[in-house]
């Protein structure tokens, strides 16, 4: 009896290692994996609309999580359209009109290039621990990867999605699936990661299917074609003046 008790006491510090970490701890790890100082990304969105499928290509220069400059490369109609995000402000530049329009108010709810993503989605603070408190509700296996299922509840009231359910890869701390809900509990959007890639020490989504549940169509596939981390982002690119260059 005494031996058993002594053994239990001796192992107790190690027992912690095998316990499931808390939701907030997992969310912090997810955030660390996703946070990149700067990057240049070339990507494609394949938008499956009700009528036809369109492909929109773009190149983004991103610094931290609050500053980005995006230029659309294709299709021809969208070529030259630029978008600038500086903290909580977003501008859109249209070369055909030579106008820079600030995207605010109800325009934020509009779809980006007809995809299943809205401008509001783009403006959201990607640091989930800042916005949500998390708890582990279950475990699952997705594409052969063991995952925790986390329920996230908004800490603030003025957030687009009141709660989320995310599937987090236990080893890579990558979000592999996400369901986004309104305050009423209605499912609004889903996100499924189909392929991940390792870039330096980060596991990032390479191919994702976004689906706006309230919208007809088969969703939007998002592909990262190339990514360069720790890239040098020229200062002038992250200014309004760059839009009309």
């Amino acid at each position, binding site marked *: 009896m005494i031996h058993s008790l002594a053994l239990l006491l001796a192992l107790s510090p190690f027992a912690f290692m095998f316990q499931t970490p808390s939701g907030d701890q997992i969310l912090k790890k997810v955030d660390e994996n996703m946070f990149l100082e700067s990057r240049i990304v070339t990507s494609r969105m394949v938008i499956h609309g*009700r009528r036809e499928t369109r492909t929109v290509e773009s190149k983004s220069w991103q610094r931290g999580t609050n500053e980005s400059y995006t230029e659309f490369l294709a299709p021809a*109609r969208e070529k030259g359209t630029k978008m600038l995000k500086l903290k909580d402000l977003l501008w859109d530049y249209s070369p055909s009109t030579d106008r820079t329009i600030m995207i605010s108010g109800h325009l934020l709810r509009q779809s980006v290039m007809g995809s299943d993503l809205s401008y509001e989605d783009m403006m959201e603070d990607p640091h989930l621990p800042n916005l949500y408190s998390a708890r582990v509700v279950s475990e699952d296996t997705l594409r052969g990867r063991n995952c925790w299922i986390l329920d996230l509840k908004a800490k603030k009231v003025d957030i687009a999605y009141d709660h989320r359910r995310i599937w987090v890869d236990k080893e890579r701390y990558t979000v592999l699936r996400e369901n986004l809900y309104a305050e009423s509990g209605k499912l609004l959007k889903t996100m499924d990661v189909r392929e991940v890639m390792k870039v330096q020490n980060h596991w990032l989504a390479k191919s994702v299917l976004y689906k706006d549940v309230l919208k007809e169509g088969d969703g939007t596939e998002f592909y990262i074609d190339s990514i360069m981390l720790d890239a040098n982002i020229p200062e002038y690119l992250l200014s309004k003046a760059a839009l009309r260059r």
Partner: protein
Amino acid sequence: MIAFLLKGLMRDRSRSLFPFLTVFAGVLMVVFLQAWINGAISSMIQATAHYRTGHVGVMTRAYAKEADQVPNDLALLGIDTLIANLRHNYPDLLWTPRIMFGGLLDIPDEHHETKAQAPVSGMAVDLLSSDSPERSILRMQDAIVRGRVVRNHEEILVGDELANKLGVQPGDTATLISSTMYGSMSLTNFVIVGTIRFGIAAMDKGMLIADVSDIQQALDMRGGAGEILGFFKDDLYHEDRANAMTARFNREHAMTPAMEGKNDTLFVPVMATLRTLSGLSDYIDYVGVFTRVIIGVFLLAMAVVLWNAGLTGSLRRYGEIGLRLAVGEDKTHVYVSLLAESLAIGFTGSVAGTVIGLGVAYYAQVHGFDIGSIMRDSTMMLPNIVRAQITTFTYFIGFLPGLLATFFGTAMSGIGIYKRQTSELFKELET
């Protein structure tokens, strides 16, 4: 006998004046209200047809299901062929494409930054084709407040109220921010060449009108349109013909079992009538019932008043009726003579009420009444100036309540004649 009764009515005004005035006032009200309601409904139907639905409309099946949301992603494509077919198969109507859209009108300052911005409700119509019927359908020239009509591409007209709110003048540039049919944000520059006012509160607040080809370009819907509208050439809505035409078109474009469930079938064209498209169906039925109820209420009220007048008259004419019975006149003959008197009064009152009612209705038909102040926040397609409309029915509608009310009123009050005892008549007359 008739001359005798008429002489009596003329000489004894207390017998005829009050019933006459009652019938006159009631008939006048019925005639005017019928013309007024008829005018309001006709105005609403005409405005709805001109500015929203046409007399018939063609759109895709998917668009028709969500038409109130103006889903341009479900618009008709290849409309030139479809319009050519419609013009060939249904030559009684004028066919024209329309695109309804929403967005923001953004006014730039000298640095291309936003100076002012407001939501707009846009309508793209064929303004530049030489054979377009739209200029007359929309009475475009009459609607111009400042500037001129659209004559070239990349020109627009905006509501006068909106122009004042944004502080713009004809000649200024504006950027339309909207959505393409694929959901992308669309920015397009236009020159404001004029301001308009249609006199319909629901439209004038944030109206923008552009040529359909410019909006096809702006919203990335080349060769497309939300709807193709058909207008009868006499500009009147012929429901039976519209129904027959719609049934024929939809039979020709019916889905076969093999097509069920396929995505392409969403875009098969379907035709619908103004009544279906406007959502006015229940409203028109409701107004019809309402009109009948009004006439019924007037009929009842007049009958009660005239019944009462008849009772009073009977009391006053107690001696006269008693004497007539005493000298041997049959009770039924006396009763019938009272009914004949009432019909004469009813007829005279109805004629006078109809004539004056028609006069008032005619004034309201020519000049109308401005109800703009109470329609300020209305979404109904009702012109601010509502005019009465006199139809053949207006000439006759007053006679029904006019004659029936006096007849029933006298019939009820005259029953007392049969309660008089002949044996007691001389005794009654002595007292």
